């Protein structure tokens, strides 16, 4: 398993590239960051892409539940 810093660095690099590429408003930054996170999540777990569009419940390493959607977004449950 890769060092977490590698994934965080990859996401940061992508964010930096996108910020450098064009005019980005301050209000866009959270959305861009979330988009990068979703992309990373599906990259790490490709099967997420096959989830139904209503989402599928998954557990994290702390035992917490979340509804995970095919685009990599999620909603924490409970």
């Amino acid at each position, binding site marked *: 398993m890769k060092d977490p810093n590698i994934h*965080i660095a990859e996401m940061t690099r992508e964010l930096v590239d996108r910020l450098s590429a064009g005019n980005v408003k301050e209000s866009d930054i959270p959305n861009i960051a979330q988009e990068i996170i979703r992309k990373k999540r599906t990259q790490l777990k490709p099967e997420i892409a096959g989830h139904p569009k209503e989402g599928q419940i998954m557990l994290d390493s702390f035992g917490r539940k*979340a509804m995970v959607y095919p685009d990599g977004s999620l909603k924490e449950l409970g």
Partner: protein
Amino acid sequence: MGQIPVNQSQTQLRSPLMPRATGEGQQRDEVATKGLVGALDNATDVLAKVQDTQEHNAAQVYATEQLSALKDKADQDPNFKNGNEYATEMDRIGQDAAKNITNTLVRNDFMSRYKIAANSTLSGINNTFRDRQLKAAQADLLTGIDAQQESYFNATYPQEKMTAAALIKQSIEDNVKGMVISPEEGVKLWDKISADLPAKDAMRDIGKDPTVALQRLQTNSYGIKDEGKRAELIADAERAAIREQKMQQLGFEQAQEQTAVDLTSKLWDGSLTLSQIQDEMNAGTLERKDAEYLRKAILSDRTSDIQSATKEQKAQTETKQAETYMNMWDMILKKGKATDKRQTILKEFSDGNLRKEDAIKLYTGYLIPNQGGGKVSLAEAVAAEQAAAKKNQFIAGAIRLFRHFWNQANPIDEGDTE
């Protein structure tokens, strides 16, 4: 010198013959005696020759040593005028050496040989002196030319320079006439001096006023014939002019800072050379620490493509570089001197802990701009700093989000589904 006892030897040889001088036996004895005397005479001759040879040799050794010492003395003599004063000394040495030779013929023979040796030594002394005179005259010529070149460099107008150059040529010609140098040497010397003078003139001007020197080099008012040399001098003058301009505008520390930034930009585009670093160091416009990091960075950049690494090493490097990259963000987003941040990024890159593309982006895009880098108004400087700070704030927020994602909201570690 030891003497061979000739008479004693003869006495010893003759003594056993004396009791046998009687009758028939006496006749035989006389015959025998005659033969023996003849033999003895021959032996005496041989012994005398041995003695003569020894005396001749001893005189020769003495004379050779003395002549050699005399030549050494003459060669070092600062007041040497001519060889005559040494000729008298040579006569004395000859007489001294010959006085122990008992045989007149041998002595005459020695003296005739000695005169040849003495003349040869005298001629050697005179030759060495002439060489010394010649070398001294040649040194005088070159010293004189140095002074004349100074006049050339110090002359303001072209006409004055031409006169100064003509005087140098005249000096060389005078020395050719005076046989201090040969005509060929004279031509060679003038060709070299006349070819070097304009370039040397430009170099001196670069040291004094590089901006003026640069203008003059561009129009070639120096008259430099070698275009390669002129291009080289233009590059030197440009560097010196920029340095001087920076020093004037920014002051010493900021000029160093700006040089470091400029050279680092060259490092990123691959055009930085070790000699450029050395030039700036020599001119005092680059801090030693920056020079060290830049030098190391060039070498590490050059060798990175040719070094092979195992899969495991590559993974370790990737981990280290990711960790350093994030640490650099932490550093950038904290308060601190831009110079220190800049140097830290450069150092981490030169140590191989940072990928080149990351280093470039961090260095050029996200450092708070250093306001020593150019002529900007205070308002522009503040605006630039605020813009950079705001951009960095966005990134700081996003990084926090990424970390949060990884540490707190990563429900895919286990991959369990319901």
